[in-house]
């Protein structure tokens, strides 16, 4: 399968062409956030305060990286399970966030919001964390340092491998893929 190169931050016209099942290589800047950081970001919106970075056109990677050992830009950095961010994601999509990356299912509200806002959900291979970290050239903490692994980092990545799990039309690999391989155990 041919890899599609995708530049970060994202571009709405470009990601509208991506389809569920496409394999992509991401290059550019992405931000990390998981449970605790999402709670704070949405609290900013609730209270009318500015968020620590502008989410417009950005991709948020759901990850809490391991600390970097000497000679590495970042520690192991595979995706965390995305459904825990479902309660917050539509708020950020309404603010212009165009991409999310993690692993695992999303709920209907998130998928509806993605369709409305023309956003995409990428999957990285869960557990392939040491392999993935080799594609991250630089990592800086930009906010919430007190959260430790949950702080918001800015990653500079090159050819970061991912799969389009849910595209901007709502097509979903987690629905279509398993259907193709499911068999009746009693036959």
């Amino acid at each position, binding site marked *: *399968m041919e890899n599609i190169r995708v530049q970060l931050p994202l571009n709405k016209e470009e990601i509208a062409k991506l389809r569920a*099942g496409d*394999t992509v290589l991401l290059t550019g800047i992405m931000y990390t956030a998981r449970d*605790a950081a999402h709670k704070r970001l949405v609290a900013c919106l609730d209270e009318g305060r500015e968020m620590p970075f502008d989410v417009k056109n950005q991709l948020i990677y759901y*990850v*809490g*990286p*391991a*600390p*970097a*050992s000497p000679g*590495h830009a970042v*520690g*192991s*950095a*595979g995706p*965390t*399970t995305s*459904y825990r961010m479902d309660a917050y994601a539509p708020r950020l999509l309404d603010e212009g966030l165009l991409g999310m990356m993690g*692993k*695992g*299912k999303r709920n209907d509200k998130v998928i509806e919001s993605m369709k409305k806002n023309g956003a995409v959900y990428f*999957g990285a*291979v*869960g*557990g*392939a*964390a*040491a*392999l993935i*970290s*080799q594609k991250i050239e630089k990592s800086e903490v930009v906010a919430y340092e007190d*959260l*430790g*692994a*949950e702080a918001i980092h800015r990653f500079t990545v090159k050819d970061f*491998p991912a*799969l389009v*799990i849910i595209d901007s039309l709502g097509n979903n*690999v*987690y629905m*279509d*893929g*398993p*259907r*193709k*391989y*499911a*068999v*009746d*155990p009693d036959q």
Partner: protein
Amino acid sequence: MREIEASVIKKTIYDLILKASYEIGDDVYACVANCAECEESPSGREVLKQLKENYDIAKRERVAICQDTGMCVLFIDIGQEVHITGGDFTETVNNAVREAYKEGYLRKSVVNDPLYDRINTKDNTPAVIHTRIVPGDKIDIMVTPKGFGSENMSAIKMLVPADGEKGVIDFVVDTVKKAGPNPCPPIIVGVGIGGTFEIAALMAKRMTARSIDTVNPDPRYQRLEEELLRRINCLGIGPAGIGGRTTALKVNIETYPTHIAGMPVAINIVCHAARHAHAVI
């Protein structure tokens, strides 16, 4: 009475944490490598190849296999002829965790309070310690750092005797089906059947750390392990949940006598980063 210094226990646990975090067991490595060849789905094969490469990188560069280096769970069997000297046992274990997670560049993933504060303890303590007193003069230690992507997909149910084998099969297969891509398949499914509410859960956890090359010694439960694996792999979830035949690598069952009125069943799932390391002092 044999005396064992707390410092010896600490050093052993420290080494086991690093070994478990960096090096996947030979059993899981061989199984993933094998499935990377025979998985029917092309994208599933690609995922499994990446997992194999990831194991190689982690071992070679001494970095964590997965960034979620877990809560540190320990099963420690203490021989009743052992006298531990030179320190508090629980504090010794926590000191080993504290130092290994700091010096080994492992992620600190523990918060102090589950509901209200949720402040990171910054050293991955406290550990989760399960001890048993056993005959002999040795200490047997199994360290199994447990990530929460898979932990969150676990389940327990108080079945009743009338539910029978079918009840167990339906509950296990349904739990894996509902989990779908979330726990990072291919997974290993630990199942505890019998005992009480908490014993069932404890057995299921212990079964996530049993070698996938072993089987239940009772042939009836061995057949049940095989049947559950077959049915799980008929679900089509596949590597990373994107479709394929390799959803689980193994189902491990442990049982315990139970009450006339009950049949508790607990399911603890662990992902392909099924980390554990074992030593006897």
